[in-house]
């Protein structure tokens, strides 16, 4: 559940304009892919969604409310690298989100609540094909498997918004296809809106329901930093497919299911 609204959004660092006048209305459960040349403010925009950068001007709203200006459990993130905790095993990496949620002082779970959380994490690992690797450390996994795990880790707390910063940029094309399937499955199974930055234009068309292109409209060769980037193309893709698969009643059912699941495990 997350509608994202940007109204007259600017981001400047002193005289350096990164984004100028970005306007955007993203519906709940959209899969937004973002492309654009390097230095065109894609990452800055994602950082604002993440809460580690604040807009210089204009409004950025989630479900009509201003964004909390620091990262929280509403928003999941997968970076290109360094998203995993090297000192934790695969299972512990996934478990961590649940432990943060339910154990405020020790950050660790014990007894029944630990078993419940483990079952939860194990189910997720099985579903993404990482069941047999659960006791390995991230350093023992290949790049593709690491990203697979990182994605799973990000959805365990069921964020409203999942942010992907070139998650497949460093991977082989064959492995990337597998991960596309995974991300679409998780997107369908969880009630979340996805924003994904990518350099791969084909990927952006294949995955997204909406494609944003960030680019500079005006360029002053004497002062390249004087003008910022805007959204120059805003394409709606796969409208029918999305409407068909996620009609309103189906959504309600899945929300109830997830709620009853959560109450069982709590």
């Amino acid at each position: 559940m997350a509608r994202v609204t940007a109204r007259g959004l600017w981001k400047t660092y002193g005289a350096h304009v990164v984004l100028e006048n970005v306007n955007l209305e993203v519906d709940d459960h959209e899969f937004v892919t973002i492309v654009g040349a390097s230095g065109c403010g894609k990452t800055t925009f994602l950082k604002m969604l993440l809460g580690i950068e604040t807009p210089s001007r204009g409004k950025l709203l989630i479900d009509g409310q201003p964004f909390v200006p620091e990262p929280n459990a509403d928003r999941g993130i997968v970076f290109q690298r360094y998203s995993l905790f090297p000192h934790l095993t695969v299972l512990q990496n996934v478990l961590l989100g649940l432990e943060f949620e339910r154990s405020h002082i020790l950050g660790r779970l014990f007894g029944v609540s630990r078993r419940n959380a483990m079952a939860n994490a194990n189910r997720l690992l099985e579903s993404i094909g990482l069941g047999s690797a659960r006791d390995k450390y991230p350093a023992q996994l290949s790049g593709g498997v690491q990203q697979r795990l990182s994605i799973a880790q990000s959805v365990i707390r069921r964020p409203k918004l999942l942010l992907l910063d070139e998650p497949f940029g460093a991977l082989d094309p064959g492995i990337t296809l597998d991960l596309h399937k995974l991300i679409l499955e998780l997107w369908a199974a969880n009630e979340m809106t996805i924003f994904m930055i990518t350099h791969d234009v084909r990927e952006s068309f294949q995955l997204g329901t909406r494609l944003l292109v960030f680019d500079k409209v005006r360029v002053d060769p004497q002062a390249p930093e004087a003008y910022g980037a805007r959204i120059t193309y805003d394409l709606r893709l796969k409208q029918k497919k999305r409407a068909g698969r996620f009609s309103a009643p189906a959504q309600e059912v899945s929300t109830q299911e997830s709620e009853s699941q959560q109450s069982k495990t709590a």
Partner: protein
Amino acid sequence: MRRLVNRHPGRGGALVLGALPFLLLVCVYLFASHLRAVANADDKLLPTPSVLASTIHSYAFEEDSRSGSVLFWQDTRASLERLFIALGLSAAIGLVFGVVIGVIPLVRSTLAPFVAALSMIPPLAILPILFIVLGLGEVAKIALMVIGVMPVIIRDLALRAGELPSEQLIKAQTLGASTWQLIVRVALPQIWPRLIDSLRLTLGSAWLFLIAAEAIASTEGLGYRIFLVRRYLAMDVILPYVVWITLLAFATDWLLKWIRSRACPWAEMAH
């Protein structure tokens, strides 16, 4: 014939090569002490093996006629006790401050310059202050070691904690971590191996401060004994003590390394 840079010794070869300098040193000593013993049977500077053996025997296996205790072991126990208490304290304080300085920007701004300045004070220069304020007992000696070692550990750990990829800290927050949870589950566990490395590196200076403190004011301890018998040119005592201190330091270093590989297997994989 392969190039020299491509020739690697086998397991046995590496052992032999590693032992070579030690054997060489022993040979040189034996030769020199033999030459001096031939020239002067009462030479004190480079005692012969038989003199060394009898001294070691009387220090390590016979009770001292005055105090009734076996000096060698009494000294060893006293020194190790001081060393480990000081290292333990330094590690505990260093860990807490290091992690907090590394992870929390407000604390970093407050304490990092102070710790940096503190670590520049030559500990031996304030040894008199410690003796004046804390007396000549154990506290002053342990305080000297802690003051010498702790700031180094704090700075090292703070640097390492500050080097944690910001991606990791952000990721943990998106998983719902509070500052406290971030410290106990993400920062601290990743700092452990660095703490052990840090202890290994400061082991040398810890011994230095220990021996300095013992030399000045003590009634037992390895450093005390060395400086006591110096008056009699008793190289037959000093040399075995120095070798023993080296062995103890080496063993401690090896033990710390072993603990690291056991407690933090993931840290070995990363490289």
